[in-house]
């Protein structure tokens, strides 16, 4: 158990940035659900945030080395839970992603697996540190991340599955993959991807439609292009200063799809304009810089790996979500960390930050 005095080393600045963003999130969720049946989600988000904070402090108390010790078990349980979801999961909107724990509580293992993977990958590359990465090492890393990824992909949940990918990339990068190896892998991926695209069997029709919509949002304005088109209109019509809180016509008029989860940034951009959006991106920048700084000051390599894994997942989610909202990326169901409504996403983020705090608090401890 950690001594309370070490909370001097708790990253209060990071927490402050996180809380500012959380408040913005709650206000925007309130606005986006004002006239919908989801009215009141802002209250639930506050509850999630409170629970997230508790989880954050709880996990910061357990020495992350203990987490590294138990991660093989956690990994095993993760794979098992994903298999359970596949067999007994609750089917919602054609996808099995949740286990019903009863009492209205739904557990989405794929979010939890993300955290386990970050630690597992950190442990894996920590064990390999100081050595040259062989093709076998790289293969194992692919398997480590690939197995849960495939399981989640078949739920199907492309969005979450994709968030596992940066964990592996980050591990390989920090673990010392060589440029030549990267080149060969990219070539192989391009080849496989090309073949898959040609055969058209790897992607579900709706996923193909999303890609098409990304390439030309106006091609099917009522169908798959609808979301991205409405999102672009929301963001663009916000202008420099925005339409004002609770005054986004796209958001309030229910034109913008799911404006409290995946498209919350579009809703925010509409109501608070370019200036507001830059403010949020600046907050993300500060948070990420703060995280990387924590990686730099981590007392050991696995600590730094874990922090950088978290950074990788978060920047990836920001890039994909905001990129989608502004039309730079195809539509994938990836929530924006700290902004989107939802317990699973908040719990992951706060647990992740709790582990970062954990690592920071132990930087002077041996």
């Amino acid at each position, binding site marked *: 158990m950690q001594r309370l005095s070490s909370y001097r080393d708790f990253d209060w600045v990071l927490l402050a940035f996180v809380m500012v963003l959380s408040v913005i999130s709650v206000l925007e969720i309130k606005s986006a659900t004002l*006239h919908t049946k989801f009215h009141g989600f802002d209250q639930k988000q506050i509850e999630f945030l409170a629970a997230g904070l508790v989880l954050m402090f709880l996990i910061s108390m357990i020495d992350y080395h203990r987490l590294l010790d138990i991660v093989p078990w956690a990994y095993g349980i993760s794979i098992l839970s994903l298999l359970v979801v596949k067999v007994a999961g609750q089917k919602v909107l054609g996808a099995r992603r949740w286990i019903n724990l009863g009492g209205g509580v739904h557990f989405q293992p794929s979010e939890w697996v993300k955290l386990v993977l970050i630690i597992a990958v950190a442990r894996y590359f*920590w*064990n390999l*540190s*100081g050595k*040259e*990465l062989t093709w076998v090492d790289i293969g194992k890393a692919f398997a480590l991340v690939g197995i849960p990824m495939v399981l989640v992909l078949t739920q199907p949940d492309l969005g979450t599955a994709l968030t596992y990918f940066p964990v592996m990339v980050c591990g390989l*990068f*920090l673990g*010392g*993959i*060589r*440029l030549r190896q990267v080149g060969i892998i990219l070539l192989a991926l391009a080849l496989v991807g090309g073949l898959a695209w040609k055969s058209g069997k790897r992607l579900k029709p709706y996923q193909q439609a999303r890609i098409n919509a990304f390439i030309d949002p106006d091609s099917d304005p009522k169908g798959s292009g609808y979301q991205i088109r*409405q999102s*672009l*209109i*929301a*963001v*663009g*019509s*916000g*202008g*420099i200063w925005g339409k004002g809180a609770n005054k986004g*016509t*796209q958001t*309030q*008029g*229910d*034109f913008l799809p799911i404006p409290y989860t995946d498209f919350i940034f579009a809703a925010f*951009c509409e109501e608070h*304009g*370019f200036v507001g*959006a*830059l403010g949020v*991106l600046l907050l*993300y*920048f500060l948070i*990420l*810089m703060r995280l*990387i700084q924590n*990686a*730099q000051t*981590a*007392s*050991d*390599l696995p600590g*730094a*790996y874990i922090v*950088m894994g978290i*950074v990788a997942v978060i*920047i990836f989610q*920001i*890039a994909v979500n*905001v*990129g989608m909202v*502004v*039309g*730079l990326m195809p539509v994938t169901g990836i929530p924006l960390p700290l902004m989107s409504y939802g317990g699973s996403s908040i719990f992951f983020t706060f647990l992740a930050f709790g582990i970062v705090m954990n690592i920071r608090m132990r930087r002077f401890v041996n």
Partner: protein
Amino acid sequence: MELAPQYEEQVGANGKAEKLPANKLNAAQYLVALVLVVLSAGLWRLQVLGADNFRALAEANRVRKVPVLAPRGRLFDREGRLLVDNYPSVSCFLLREQVKDLNADLPLISQGLHIPEEQILAALRHYQSAPKYQPIPLKQDITPDEQAFIAAHTSELPELETLDEQRRLYPRDGFAAHLIGYVGEISEDDLNKPKYAFYQPGDVVGKSGVEETYDALLRGVDGSRDVIVNSHGKEIGHLGQTLAQPGQDLKLTIDLDVQMAAEKAMEGKTGAMVALDPHTGEILALVSRPTFDPNQFSVRVSKSYWNEIINNPDHPLLDKAIQAQLAPGSTFKIIMSYAGLQENAAQDMHVMCSGGASFYGHFFACDKRHGMVDIEHAIPWSCDTFYYTLANKLGIDTISKYATDLGLSQRTGVDLPDEVTGTMPSTAWKMKNFHEKWYAGEVISVGIGQGAVAVTPIQLARAIGGIASGGALRRPHLVFPDEVPAEELQAVHETFPGSGDKTVQLSTANWQLITDAMAQTTISGTAAPAHLEGIDFAGKTGTAQVVSHSAGMTSLGTGKERANAWFVGMAPRRNPDIVVAVLWEHGGWGAGSAPVAAQVINAFVEKQRKRANNLRIAETPTVTQTATAEPTPAPQKDTTN
């Protein structure tokens, strides 16, 4: 990748590195910054460079124009009594853009709105070529229950929309139906006409009568509300509105009392009656029988009612006052007399009537042996022999010239749609239409208004009213010209060209002779049974054979073979304030129509009398004076010419 040399010392005892190389972490920082800069650039592109464009798109997304229909102008009689009103009604429309799954929604819509599914599909097919955003009318005059159904199903059936409208409320039992007309949804054919260039499918327009003629004035200008809608098309607020400009109320020349008398007089008959003020051309009453219920058309006409109307052999939709073109029979003798007198051919003519006379080897019968007849007796007795002789004397082209001067074979230019011309034969007419020369003998039957002569009741009223007025013919009309903007009036006149206002030559002596003789008709002549005591009532009967001339003048036949009974009457005899033409189809003797006209004239005169009396009471309130308030009889003309 090799570990950078500077970190080698950080490799711990277990041979593992303890620190991450700074260059990789720096690279991560730059990568994060780069990602955020790219995203910021994406935002800049949309929110700064594309803002105007996207703002316009956002507006178009959420603002919908909902039409606010202008209430149609009401119609009043000449004294401001309401003839046609509006009542509030709710219609249901289908927004095709909002339909998600028609197959799923169809049974529900059908059940809730009580419309057969087939009818909904038919409506969809009907509007197939119309733009998608245009609402399709599904049902008009929906019940409160149906409104509640739509309100309760906004989320399942976002495609249903209601619209508050003002509907036409017409008098009951087809009262004045032909002159007022009716309204209905504009037809596709109409939409292609230049007149309807600014109309849209689904618009309600006047389909006949005054409703059609003055549609542009009556309909007003529809307004609209700019409604903010959500993505389901549901109204969530509104921005502003353009107020509807209600249609103009119109005061008709109709006198409700006279119209009521006319409706009553024509009850149970087929035919038409038109009463007008020959001084001005103002139509005081206009009736056509059988009639129809315009209210049935106001809401979309039902198939059964339509079939009933269409299959009625007496053509209820036909306005016989302006669309029946029939032989005028003996009423034409007034026109003959006018021609004969103006030609100085009839004044001294004495004809021996022994029940007919022979012309060109044929015997032409008269209905009586009238003995020696001059024109002063020929008119009230309606002696055919006299007019055979006169016609023979004048020749067809002279008769035709005078008749045409009086407006026969031309439209009167009344402000009602679809007026017909009638026919007045002449040598040129026969050559043009039959490529045959005119045989002199053919003129004989024309002399008594048979043969090819065909007139409409309104033509006859105008022509004979014109003679009675000393030769001044007025364009008949239903709307006071000063009620209508000048350009609209001109447009109406251009749409309904006629012979217009004009004056024909008629000497005072001839004028007096004809009108006195017509007065005699109702005193001792053929219309004596219709004599109105105390009213200077003049007229002329007409019996027009339906089957053929050879069927014999005295054979009146039965049912559809019975002769058409005409009567043209007026009061007072000279410069009449009212002239009434009655056509009673298959009514038998023309004398039968005289009482019909007499009822209307009586109602009119009684009213004037009452008004005059009231006026005198107001001036000098003594009861005794009211008894003397009869119209002063016109000075009797010395009939010895």
